[in-house]
């Protein structure tokens, strides 16, 4: 990108009497040769013609940036910088908090959990298959199951993600979860102030089979 930066002089006026304006310009027009004329308000064709004849550059109804002192500018720049630094720190903290929640010795399984099986996991579990009636899953960490659960779940992590599982028995931190609240998509289950909060994870449903 090529650019130039320079200051120009501006003459700003509002025309109330056209004759007076022309008279004034006639006597001073050499003075305005290197000015940018800004007309606020009405601009009649007579004036327009006159300005063009005199070869003067003009603009109509323009809000111009007012000049500021160097000190004021520096102060503003400094404030902007601290704002950016603060918001970056907040994002970083948030990311750290999330990764602390997630990377907790993750186990990934893609096997069907059949009846009678008790699966006890230290840390987090990502299960890509179904949990059949009569099976139990216990995790000390977070639990994500992408298919339907018909067995029992005991999770002691920060969150669970489950799809609709009307036949499941779900206990999260010794609190029984009302599974009718699980919608037919991936739901996040969290505990806030001893209350189970269930929210959809994504607005759009994802198809894990693909």
């Amino acid at each position, binding site marked *: 990108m090529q650019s130039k930066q320079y200051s120009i002089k501006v003459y700003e006026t509002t025309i109330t009497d056209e004759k007076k304006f022309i008279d004034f310009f006639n006597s001073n027009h050499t003075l305005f040769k290197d000015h940018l004329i800004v007309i606020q308000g009405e601009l009649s064709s007579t004036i327009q013609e006159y300005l063009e004849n005199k070869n003067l550059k003009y603009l109509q109804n323009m809000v111009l940036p007012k000049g500021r002192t160097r000190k004021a500018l520096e102060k503003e720049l400094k404030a902007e910088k601290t704002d950016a630094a603060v918001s970056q720190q907040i994002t970083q903290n948030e990311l750290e908090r999330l990764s602390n929640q997630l990377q907790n010795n993750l186990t990934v399984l893609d096997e*069907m959990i*059949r*009846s*009678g099986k008790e699966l006890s996991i230290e840390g987090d579990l990502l299960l890509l298959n179904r949990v*059949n*009636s*009569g099976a139990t899953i216990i995790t000390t960490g977070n639990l994500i199951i992408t298919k339907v659960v018909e067995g029992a779940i005991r999770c002691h992590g920060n969150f669970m993600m489950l799809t609709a599982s009307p036949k499941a028995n779900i206990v999260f931190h010794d609190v029984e979860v009302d599974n009718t609240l699980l919608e037919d998509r991936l739901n996040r289950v969290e505990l806030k102030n001893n209350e189970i909060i269930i929210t959809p994870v994504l607005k759009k449903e994802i198809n894990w089979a693909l």
Partner: protein
Amino acid sequence: MGIVIAVISGKGGVGKTTATANIGLGIAINNKKCVVVDFDIGQRNLDMILGLENRVVYDMVQVMDEEAALKQALIKSKANENLHFLAASQTKDKSVLDSEKVEKLIAELKKSFDFVILDAPAGIESGYEHTIEFADAAIVIVNPEVSSIRDADRAIGILDSKSAKVKKGEEVAKYLIINRIVADMVESGEMLKSDDILEILNIKLLGKVPEDRGVIDASNQGKPVILDKKSIAGQAYTRISGRLCGQKVDMKNIEISDAGLFKKIVGIFK
């Protein structure tokens, strides 16, 4: 070398023994040498369903304890000479079985038969574990109802962890038979659909057997229902036996009742 198939269900009363008798006879009709072994020690009934109860002299436990030779204990079926039967002991209980003896017996049977079919006891106790331990494949029998499916699921789970083949790192083939399907109950939603059952159990479908009043009478008379050409359950077992013998037999949709089919046909002409 023959193939060893365990017929399992978890839950009792779903039709394991009836299925074993019919599949065994069906395989024999297909000109394969087949032996059916009753592993339900202490509660044998495969002999009755095959109509051989008065022919039992020696049982499987006596063969394992070398009190009788295998040849003496094997009973040839009246219905088909390719079918043989080895009875369970009615007087002993499940605790007489041990892995070494079972392995030896099965190895011997495999030498002289194309198919060795083991009728497992209900439940998941030691008797069941010994039945599945040396099986190459399993046929899982379920009824279209939740308790039968959950018990079958449990039985499959044990099969997948206790079978000798699995311990060697190989896989035991598992096939599903859905027994006693009532078409209009499936249509009205009172009975589970076979697709739903397959989704839960996640094993290959071998066949569907419709509910048939003739089955009980056939069992009482000791003539497996597969011999009755008019019986719908018998026809289903004929198809299943054909599949086991390597024939390509299309899966018949028995979950549409005749009334439902009629409605559909009328619907086409509307």
